[in-house]
């Protein structure tokens, strides 16, 4: 086990390039037990890429990522799986298995990774669903519930194994203000009461300032600003002020270049479209 002094996650000099485009440019930070780190930044700034490096599904170009004191960038699949059993992750869409019911989705990690009896698992599933305000929904399929409910089921599933570390990708987008508050309070309760550590990627500034103990703002692959919520709120950096106040005018550029956009979607330019645009070009 880690002591309180040792960081749960330590990212050192992380660099990731796709071709000649640098998505993450030399980022370093660390997270300690019980902290809630909020990662902010505009679309396409490298937030998701950063998260994927921390959970071990992408390998960096250079640099190191230590999770629970172990270097995750050097691990093979089996070792990564061992580390992953200690954390939960909430996906942006919930990422529930559509063929299983809500209850079975939450039970899945318990069935796969513990030897608990079916009765115990049923109890845990009920408790977790109650935590996110969805008790009684066990037997519905994901297709039968709303987007916000799916996300809450995703959260219940992420918490099924009582993880030491929780990753949330936009946990409150698509939730109504009351449910947002419920989810925020749940995060706060878990990080204060159970010493869980949380890493939250979000655009929702109200929610971010409510839960964060520390905030990082990313832009163009760099950390633009980091600090406590108060430090961020009073930051003199115009990009930070523009972002947290949600202003259309400011130093953050509105458009990605075509090149970046193509890359962002992981879609190759298609010859047909290229040919068509050439055709339009000629006729103009």
């Amino acid at each position: 086990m880690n002591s309180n002094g040792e960081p749960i996650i330590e990212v050192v000099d992380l660099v990731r390039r796709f071709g000649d485009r640098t998505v993450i440019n030399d980022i370093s930070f660390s997270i300690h037990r019980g902290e809630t780190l909020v990662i902010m930044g505009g679309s396409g700034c490298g937030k998701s890429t950063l998260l994927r490096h921390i959970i071990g599904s992408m390998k960096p170009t250079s640099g190191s990522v230590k999770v629970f004191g172990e270097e995750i960038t050097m691990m093979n699949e089996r070792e990564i799986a061992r580390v992953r059993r200690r954390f939960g992750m909430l996906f942006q869409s919930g990422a529930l298995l559509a063929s299983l019911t809500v209850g079975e989705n939450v039970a899945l990690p318990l069935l796969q990774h513990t030897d608990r009896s079916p009765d115990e698992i049923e109890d845990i599933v009920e408790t977790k669903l109650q935590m996110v305000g969805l008790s009684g929904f066990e037997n519905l399929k994901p297709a039968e519930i709303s987007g916000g409910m799916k996300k809450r089921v995703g959260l219940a599933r992420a918490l099924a194994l009582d993880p030491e570390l929780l990753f949330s990708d936009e946990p409150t987008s698509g939730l109504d203000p009351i449910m947002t508050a419920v989810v925020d309070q749940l995060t706060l309760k878990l990080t204060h009461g159970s010493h869980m550590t949380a890493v939250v990627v979000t655009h929702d500034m109200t929610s971010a300032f409510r839960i964060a103990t520390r905030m990082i703002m990313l832009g163009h692959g760099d950390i633009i600003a980091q600090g406590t919520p108060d430090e961020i709120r009073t930051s003199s950096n115009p990009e930070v002020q523009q972002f947290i106040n949600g202003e259309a005018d400011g130093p953050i550029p509105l458009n990605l270049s075509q090149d970046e956009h193509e890359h962002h979607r992981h879609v190759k330019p298609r010859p047909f479209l290229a040919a068509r645009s050439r055709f339009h070009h000629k006729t103009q």
Partner: protein
Amino acid sequence: MYVPDLVMVTLLREMGPVLIAVIVIGRSGSAVAAELGTMKVSEEIEALEVMAINPVEYLVVPRFLAMLIMLPALTIMGNYIGVLGGWAVCRFALNFNTAGYILRALQSADTWDLYSGMIKSGVFAWLIITIACNAGLRVEGGAEGVGQATTASVVQALLAMLVMNAVLTGIFFFSA
């Protein structure tokens, strides 16, 4: 009349395994590719990985085993129905008597005809499910990608199955 011989030999060796495989590629291979492809594009596969559940163990292995058991089982059933069809034609169109058909059918085929068909069917099962799962798990790019992967899996599986059938027939019956 050689109708019973024709029915038995072509059915057990070729028509049974191949036709059943064609049907299964159309209804199950495509379904597997589409289902896994949809799971891929909706982040479900990634979610499994992050939950430390190996998607191959959790999703592919059960489908592989199911296909390996069910395709030969369906082929046996298909063979029965084919023989029954042969009997119906002989009995009602060609005025054979039933006992004569059964006797002739049993004399004309040997156990190797049956076994070779079963082996083929097992190999086809392996081909079909490998191609379908592979196509499904490699999907990129939303609903369009799922459609392309499903089409590709059906076309590839049909081709691979027919080529494999020719190869196996060659090995089983034309190699000295």
